[in-house]
């Protein structure tokens, strides 16, 4: 079972070396214990571009798809047998990066 752990942030991102080190430790643990699938940090929403090709022409707009105080700062995709394991890992990840994390299962295929 795969889960998406979305890192939710509500401030202008600042690179904190302590947080980065904690995230590295957490990532190593995910790999060592077989939970790791993929992870990535995202550039700020001010660098987002939305494209909507549903009309006659693809419309390109500057900015994120929704304006809100909170935004997606990064994510993990993990492998876990059930939600309890995923929530535990999400808690550790959230502590490491000191942000809120949303846990969502991928649709089973």
């Amino acid at each position, binding site marked *: *079972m795969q889960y998406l752990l979305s890192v939710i942030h509500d401030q202008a991102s600042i690179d904190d070396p302590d947080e980065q080190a904690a995230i590295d430790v957490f990532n190593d643990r995910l790999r060592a214990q077989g939970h790791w699938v993929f992870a990535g940090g995202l550039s700020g929403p001010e660098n987002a571009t939305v494209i909507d090709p549903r009309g006659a022409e693809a419309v390109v707009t500057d900015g994120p798809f929704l304006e809100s105080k909170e935004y997606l700062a990064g994510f993990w995709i993990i492998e876990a*047998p*059930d*939600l*309890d394991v*995923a*929530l535990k890992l999400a808690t550790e990840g959230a502590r490491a990066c000191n942000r809120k994390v949303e*846990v*969502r*299962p991928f*649709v*089973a295929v």
Partner: protein
Amino acid sequence: MSGFDVREAITRAHHEEWARVVALLTRRFGDLDIAEEAAAEAFATAVERWSVDGVPPNTAAWLTTTANRKAIDRIRRESKRDEKQREARMVHGAGPREPPGAIDDDRLRLIFTCCHPALAVESRLALTLRMVGGLTVPEIARAFLVTESAMGQRITRAKAKIKAAHIPYRVPATEDLPARVTGVLAVLFLVFNEGYLATSPDTDPVRHDLTAEAIRLARLIRDLLPDDGEVAGLLALMLLIEARRPARVSASGELVPLAEQDRGAWDATLIAEGHRLVRERLAAAAAGVAPGRYQILAAINAVHTSARDIRDTDWSQVLALYDQLVRVDPSPTIALNRAIAVAEVDGPDVALAAVDRLGNALAGYHAYHATRAELLRRTGHGRQARAAYDRAIELAGNTAETAYLTRRRDQLG
């Protein structure tokens, strides 16, 4: 065998075996929908068969076997439609074996699944009542004053989330238990309260099936966590309230308040068990373990059930316990109950002033108006008391309570 005997046998089997059948099927097939529907089908079949063939000697085994067969039938039907989904279900159900715990009880697993913190509180409550308590969706809908379709959707959504997010069917690991148990206790107390003071005008005023279920489940959890003070506290609290049930509703279906209850009708065995638990927690508190809200509420009920007569009640002790409770839980409903003790210790005027301060928070709560009505009566404000009774009657859903409040109002003359 008469139709009445068959009906009674089915009702009893439903109370005693529903959760066991659902829980067993959930473990076997790993799917709440299949478990619930197969259990419901098995009971429906029992209604048909037992009145023709007679009640089988072992009703539990009959129901389990029948439900099992219904579940397999259903999976076969569905497998023709969707082979892949069936496989996914079976794999999830077979899942990794959990290490054998202190107690291997399918029902306990079912409770922890239904009370998982990833579900909204209303969903936990509804699921527990449906899956563990065996209430029908219309019954649960009435209990929560929402429409049947809204309640059906709530339960369906919760079950869908359990499936999609792989909420596991297991008793949590030892280190996670204390945190998870708090949520379970809250749900059990809500179930108990719904049984003790049924909120619907269409049901019995006291639903013994629900109170008994909540107590039974609390006992199970106590076996699993004998050192958890709040588990002991909640069990003691429910036992001491349940003990008064036989004296609480009159033959004419009217609520009998504590002061007027026939204390000889109280259940001495339940009281003894409750008092034993409270003493155990008092010893722990003396050793420096701070009691939580259920333990304090149990202690309050221990004081009430220790008095041979309402006049023997140690109200200053009750008030001291409420003062302690307010520090743990400063909610307006606790403050309201505290005011009842204040009336006995400091007089109804002081209590009325305290109750009036809660008006904003509790304006829609029948007990606020009922308490106020009693205090207004005692302070000689007949006209205002009548208005408060009117409002309390309007808001109360419980038939015994409505009958009592109506009589009290009409006594005002």
